[in-house]
């Protein structure tokens, strides 16, 4: 059986996660696109912490007989991995786009200075 104290800590921690994520979006420090996975993490952990029988049942399915809260940690780890993987793809895209931007600016600067010197006329 899951110790009650662990369930309470789980509920408080996941509720806190959800509230922090919502506040970050409200303050425009987090875009919805990148918040959805965090919110899903928070909600799943909240449900598994609060609904103790479900946690025990899932633990039973997985053959975790000694200590059901281990499932909680496993699920949390899985979601953190998902978030990290998602961020790695986002980072890769941003890297490409950043290079593209720098290249565009370099070409533009050259073009602007050429147009400016042409409009001033020779000499």
């Amino acid at each position: 059986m899951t110790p009650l104290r662990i369930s309470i800590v789980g509920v408080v921690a996941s509720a806190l996660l959800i509230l922090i994520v919502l506040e970050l979006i409200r303050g425009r420090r987090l875009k919805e696109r990148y918040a959805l996975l965090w919110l899903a993490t928070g909600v799943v952990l909240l449900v598994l912490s609060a609904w103790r029988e479900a946690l025990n049942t899932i633990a039973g399915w997985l053959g975790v007989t000694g200590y059901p809260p281990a499932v909680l940690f496993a699920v949390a780890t899985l979601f953190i991995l998902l978030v990290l993987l998602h961020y790695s793809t986002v980072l890769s895209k941003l890297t490409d786009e950043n290079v593209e931007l720098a290249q565009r600016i370099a070409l533009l600067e050259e073009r602007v200075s050429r147009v400016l010197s042409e409009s001033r006329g020779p000499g």
Partner: protein
Amino acid sequence: MTASLGRIVAVVPAFDESEVIGKVVDEIRAFDPDIDVVVVDDASTDDTAAVADSHGAIVLRLPHNVGIGGAVQTGFKFALAEGYDTAVRLDGDGQHDAAELGKLLAPLERREADLVIGSRFVDPDGTYRPPLARRIGIRVFARLVSTLGGQRVTDTTSGYLALDRVGIELFAAEYPHDYPEVEATLVALRSGLSLAQVQVRMRERETGSSSITFLRSLYYVAKVTLALLVASLRRYPRLETARR
């Protein structure tokens, strides 16, 4: 007829629309040759930018794909920087009929609204019948925005709209980057803009496919719902509109 609206710019976001973008530009210019057409090319892989340019549009080329909202906002930033008094926004795929522009501009001309949305459902004539799932989505979001924004909105997913200078300033500063229409409508209402809706006909897409595929619709619903709820928790400065 458009003298009191000052200088007008038409913002047309386009991604891989080389087959129809020329016609879209021509139709806007046919409606009123004094309207400057700005095509925002969202890093198309075809020659959308060249075609738009050859049809006389001002072309803003984004270096990489930023999504429909980011592309449209580029146009609004251009409108703000270049001092336009009025902006209209039409899709680059030809589904918004430029012949309907007069209807969109009329409430702005009478100074009754800051934002006019071309709606398919103000006075439905039965010609627009989206698939059931889509119809439910449109209905639910319209209800949600109406409740949260305090004014009845019939079509929050329409991208066919007209803005006065206040609206241009708002959307140049704040416009969602993906799936923007629903949230932008709520932001406008909460910022105190007065909204008018006019019935417009929309055409079927001529080429390509809608940007909303089945797989993306899940993300769409989750993102927009979250954005609406958070937007209703935010405080927006009430803008000085001409209508209050």
